[in-house]
């Protein structure tokens, strides 16, 4: 098994009076595509936000590339090489597509080759490069949010429910794009509710429930075991074929 790029050990997160994460332990191996699954309210988004330092872990520790990042500020965590794509098509709507991308480039300049690659993944972004991101459709906004994370090579990409609310045709487009990202060797931690998408992309899977990890293993095992899917996720595979 490759060495872990990201390790969470006994991570607890409180938001106000609520104890959301209750001892989360898992690893993201370098170069792997790990999918974090779980029902609504299981703590998946909180896990990503805690990794990014947007919510501080009240206990436990988070190590990234061998360094403890638990108490670091969010900009420092981002600068250390983690890109984060929040849920809900999170673009800066008052800025143009180009400005959104430049904002994500730490050097302030976009690499032309990288941009061409992004345009090949999401052609719509090339067509609307100079337009305000707020005028894009939901799917295009989601493409832009992901493109922002890809504009520079990052060690780890955290993606929160990229297919949420998108039409099936766009979900297919999104999966193809993530496959290319995976083939390019990126390490990705993806939160996803769409099991079909998760199954097509994931090497490893982590399942959460009530702020705890209830399963971790290879995605191929979970995909092949419908009883396990039923127990962990309440899924009938027939419904997802």
């Amino acid at each position, binding site marked *: 098994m490759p060495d872990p790029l990201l390790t969470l050990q006994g991570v607890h997160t409180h938001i106000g009076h609520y104890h959301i994460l209750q001892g989360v332990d898992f690893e993201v191996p370098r170069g792997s595509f790990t999918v974090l699954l779980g029902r609504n309210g299981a703590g998946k988004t909180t896990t990503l936000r805690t990794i*990014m330092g*947007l919510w501080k872990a009240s206990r436990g520790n988070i190590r990234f590339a061998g360094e403890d990042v638990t108490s670091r*500020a*969010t*900009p420092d965590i*981002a*600068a250390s090489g983690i890109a*984060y794509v*929040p849920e809900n098509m*999170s673009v*800066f*709507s*008052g*800025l143009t597509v180009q*400005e959104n991308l*430049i*904002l*994500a480039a*730490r050097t*302030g300049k976009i690499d032309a080759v990288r941009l061409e690659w992004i345009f090949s993944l999401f052609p*719509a972004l090339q*067509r*609307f490069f100079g*337009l305000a991101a707020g*005028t*894009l*459709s*939901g*799917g*295009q906004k*989601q*493409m832009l949010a992901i493109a*922002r994370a890809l504009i520079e090579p990052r060690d780890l990409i955290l993606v929160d429910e990229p297919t949420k*609310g*998108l*039409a*099936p045709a*766009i979900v297919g*487009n999104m999966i193809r794009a993530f496959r290319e990202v995976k083939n390019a060797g990126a390490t990705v931690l993806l939160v996803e509710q769409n099991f079909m998408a998760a199954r097509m992309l994931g090497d490893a899977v982590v399942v959460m429930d009530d702020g705890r990890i209830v399963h971790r293993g290879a995605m191929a095992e979970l995909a092949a075991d419908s009883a396990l899917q039923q127990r962990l996720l309440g899924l009938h595979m027939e419904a997802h074929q």
Partner: protein
Amino acid sequence: MFGRVLSGDYPRSPILTGALLLILFVLAFAPFLFTGAQPLNVAAKICVFILLVASYDLLLGYTGIVSFAHTMFFGIGGYGAAIALSRLGPSWAALALGIVAAIAVAGTLALLIGLFSLRVRAIFFAMITLAVATAFLVLASQLSGFTGGEDGLNYTVPELLRPSFRLFAEPIFGTIVNGRIVTYYIVFFIALAGFLLLLRVVNSPFGSVLQAIRENEFRAEALGYPVVVYRSFASVVSAVMAALAGILLALWLRYTGPDTTLSFAIMIDVLLMVVIGGMGTLYGAVIGATLMTIAESYLPAIMGSLGKVGAGIPFLSTLLSADRWLLWLGILFILSVYFFPTGIVGKLRAHWQNKRHGTAQRQDSSTPGDSGNTRPSN
């Protein structure tokens, strides 16, 4: 060339372009277009307020920071020049010292307030700035030996800027170019340069980060931008520009007092100018400052004339009395907010964009949203 001067930020509306060019033309040639002191006073005040309002829009419109301490920085500029000129005499060295001191004090104070207070929620930051501004106003009123107290400070400006000074022996276009006109052009060009500099700031990568922070500070942090540092730096730039506007007003009026620089009435005026012109666009500062200053300067006289017309009619004469000009200004404000919720500039730009969009759609149906649509809600 034009694009570089405007930092690529065009007005994006023919009506707005026309209005801005008209304002620029009138302000540039005001000493030669009008006679009498009042029009030139109004023009100088418009120049000062364009810079002041634009600097406030950098905070409110571009960064999403609500501050009530902006007139404090305006006052620091005014008092910096006033104290230096009144204490050290009417020399350029004294003025330069006053300018440097005022800008240094304004910048440092803005940085301190920003670093200590911008971590808190917006409403608390607004309250902190209100408290600091009130304390500064009280301090300026109480330290009468230093600031002149409620009476303020009268001082003499360097000879070149005095009304008695003649730049040319012969009149130019029938106007004697005296020190007053020289002062006006100093105010005009510094305000113009300050405005263009702010335009550069908001259209730079730094400006994009500020807009990103305004939209969603967590997302901006997640991209690696330390929000407090960026907000504090925006506060410093804004405060320095406000202080510069205060220095210009001090040079123009040759008087600085709490009522001309520090009062909350000015803060409210600045807020109204930003809202009427349009938040998040510096051209809104130009439109808002021009309309409000003209309305405040001429509405009482217009109301007085209308009052005389309706003198025989009891209710109408009261309503149109010169003393009621603030009521009409309030009504104009309510109407402008109702009809132009995004400000005049926002409305004009949206109107032009819709018009162009309509034309483009007829020519080419390829518009954003035609691919990658979200699933329709059930």
